């Protein structure tokens, strides 16, 4: 009983931590984000492989060590997607007519095929198989696209009701406008996983999940294992009935430790001492050759991933398409860097305070399905905000400081004079200049005292503020072209000063700086 209670307590702790993570409770706590991210096997591995992040690397090692010692405890204690399924399964135990689970075949061929496809595709820079199967990202998308919007709706309804009484204690929260395709996909997937969990328990973890496949190999040779005690077992089937992995064969009195997710339900359910979780020194009767082979396989594939991932660019990605709508978050370095590491967990989507980071569906290409991008339709990237880079668990968005971020050029603004209201209506506007944090959207004299924008490309960081606020309809007069490889912008002040000296500045041409008064104010 004790082990099961421990499992439930720890798993709920992790689950709530991850939910809080997505609700930005830890925003600004970069360390908490780093530690939580490090517990997730695949994201942490990608981050570690990309450049030796200490916490991420330690996290991977700890998870592997835990599995070699205790079996797949990761799947039942730490993995939030596993816990989510356990919550669904709980309802089956409580309310279903037929509450018992049945023995499931160990679907080795399917599991290893999926894992192989995922790994090979990821090595080739195609992330879609990984992104669709990786458990943390699936949990993340469900949280970001379903749970969080639902919570925001409830919160804002309450806030709206209280505001009628001029009580502002509950703050309305910003919600990203979901990409319809991404949202529909996520809802359908949630429904699927709900029924799969109700009907077949942890089948997902033993067929599709690449983390499950890898950890299963380690669990097979783990020191502690669930073991039937041949002499005490009466083959009553109580343990198998509560086994959501379907890995207990009561007739044969055998447990498949490869598919066992170490939930300890069986131990708690047994009325005798017919099944136990116990230590056995390895190698006594097992096939050591096979184990060595497995170990080698893991080591080699890990090494292959490490060597393959950090390569800066893939051929083809660097090509600038003339009109480039994709903008990736500051810290993501380039399309190639980002596309290769992002598992579409949507944590950045969730954490972004302005909701400028949005999930995409096909925008990055089918091979990078669901990876997010910046969308300046109704928001922009705040000058001093680096939250996405702090929360990213895979290093797809590399951690950057505010100082660094202020000169990271994720795109460059383009000005189309013929769309501008100053040109079209001959009236002052200047909204782009007003919002521009670097004054790359500068104003120069136009005619009759009017001012018109001009882009200073070298100091533009592509934050999209100008594009968002530009009032020109139907076509924006100023918009951002994404940079496939992020550049470094010039320090704005130096550039602006140089410009003023050359007579192009606002003050120099009687532009926006006020003329000296005839009689200044005297105190």
């Amino acid at each position, binding site marked *: 009983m004790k082990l099961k209670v421990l499992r439930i307590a720890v798993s709920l702790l992790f689950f709530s931590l991850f939910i809080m993570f997505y609700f930005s409770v830890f925003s600004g706590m970069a360390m908490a984000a780093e530690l939580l991210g490090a517990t997730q096997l695949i994201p942490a591995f990608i981050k570690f492989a990309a450049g030796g992040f200490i916490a991420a690397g330690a996290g991977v090692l700890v998870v592997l060590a835990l599995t070699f010692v205790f079996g797949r405890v990761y799947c039942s204690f730490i993995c939030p997607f596993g816990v989510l399924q356990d919550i669904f399964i709980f309802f089956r135990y409580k309310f279903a007519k037929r509450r018992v689970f049945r023995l499931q075949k160990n679907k080795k061929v399917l599991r290893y095929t999926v894992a192989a496809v995922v790994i090979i595709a990821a090595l080739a820079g195609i992330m879609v198989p990984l992104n669709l199967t990786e458990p943390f990202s699936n949990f993340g998308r469900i949280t970001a696209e379903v749970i969080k919007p639902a919570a925001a709706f409830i919160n804002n309804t309450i806030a709206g009701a209280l505001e009628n009484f001029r009580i502002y204690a509950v703050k309305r929260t910003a919600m990203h406008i979901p990409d319809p395709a991404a949202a529909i996909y996520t809802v359908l997937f949630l429904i699927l996983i709900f029924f799969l969990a109700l009907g077949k328990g942890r089948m997902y973890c033993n067929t599709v999940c690449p983390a499950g496949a890898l950890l299963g190999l380690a669990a097979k040779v783990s020191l502690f294992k669930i073991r039937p005690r041949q002499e005490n077992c009466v083959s009553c089937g109580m343990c198998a009935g509560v086994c959501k992995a379907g890995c207990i064969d009561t007739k044969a009195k055998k447990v498949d430790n490869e598919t066992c997710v170490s939930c300890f339900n069986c131990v708690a359910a047994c009325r005798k001492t017919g099944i136990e979780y116990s230590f056995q020194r390895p190698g006594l009767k097992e096939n050591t050759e096979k184990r060595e082979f497995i170990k080698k396989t893991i080591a080699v594939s890990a090494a292959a991933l490490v060597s393959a991932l950090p390569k800066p660019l893939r051929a083809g990605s660097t090509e600038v398409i003339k009109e480039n709508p994709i903008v990736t978050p500051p810290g993501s370095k380039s399309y190639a860097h980002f596309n290769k590491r992002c598992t579409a967990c949507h944590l950045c989507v969730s954490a972004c305070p302005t909701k400028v980071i949005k999930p995409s569906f096909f925008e990055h290409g089918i091979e990078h399905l669901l990876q997010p991008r910046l969308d300046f339709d109704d928001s922009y990237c705040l000058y001093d*905000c680096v939250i996405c880079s702090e929360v990213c668990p895979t290093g797809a968005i590399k951690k950057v400081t505010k100082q660094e971020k202020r000169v990271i050029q994720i795109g460059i603004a383009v000005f189309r004079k013929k769309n501008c209201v100053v040109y079209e209506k001959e009236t002052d506007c200047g909204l782009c200049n007003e919002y521009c944090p670097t004054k790359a959207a500068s104003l120069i004299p136009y005619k009759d005292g009017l001012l018109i924008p001009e882009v200073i490309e070298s100091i533009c960081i592509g934050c999209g503020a100008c594009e968002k606020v530009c009032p020109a309809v139907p076509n924006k007069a100023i918009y951002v072209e994404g940079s496939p490889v992020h550049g470094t912008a010039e320090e*704005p002040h130096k550039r602006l000063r140089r410009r003023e000296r050359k007579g192009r500045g606002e003050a120099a041409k009687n532009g926006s700086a*006020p003329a000296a008064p005839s009689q200044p*104010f005297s105190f």
Partner: protein
Amino acid sequence: MNRREFLKKSAKYAVAAAGAFSLSGAESLLGSERGVDLAAVKGGTPGKMFDAGINALGGIKNFVKPNQTVVVKPNIGWDVIPEYAANTNPELVAVIVRRCIQAGAKRVYVFDHTCDNWIRVYKNSGIEHAAKTAGAVVAPGNNESYYHETAVPGGKSLKKTKIHELIFESDVFINVPVLKHHGTTRVTIGMKNLMGNIWDRRSWHVTDLHQRIADFTPVRKPDLTVVDCYRVMTANGPRGVAGGRDVVKMESQVLSRDIVAADSAAARIFGADPMDIAHIKNAAERKMGESDLSKLNIRRITL
């Protein structure tokens, strides 16, 4: 307050505004007989300057009566720290809130329709914390549901616009702009700060911005305008560039019942002729207030 009450109150203010608009010329003529029109304070902290200035105008009790509700409208536009001077000084906001409560105000609201993400702006400007600590109710301005359509009497370009409910519901309206450079309007002071009371700013930008700022001024004139000139952004406004390098510590403050007078004095402190600022010139020509400082009874105080 329900919608009907709101509309009633709006109508009342609209009539009052129209009245004020037509009488404002006469009012300013009487100005010198009524005592101090404008207080200009230099030296000292924002809080001390406010106390000196408000005393010169007869004390806070001249503006706030017991049991009244007050709305304080600072400039809380940008996600930057107070030292960059893109937002009103938080200490000044706190002192104003405290003085209103000491004068017996039932409730003091503080809000702005921010430019950057409001939650971050309220926090990083330091104003949310300062105002709450002083006892204010910090209200959001980021949702269209707070804004209600109101007619603009006498408006040449602006005929109607959606205005924040707290502006109309509150008995007293204290406008607390920060003086700074502005790319399009050259400077931003009191009248420009009123753009935080409305919902759809974008439409102003595409149709005669300067005219509309002036048009909107008499709709709900502030009972008091306090211009924060403690730190002044002298270029690259209204947001500022590169961590406040254009900020000059002027340690000044301007207080007046007359928003046009306050703006004219502050413009001169900035180093601009108010007649070069299109919206101030427009408002002065339409007699919304007095921009000729020589016609005002100014109390100059150096701390």
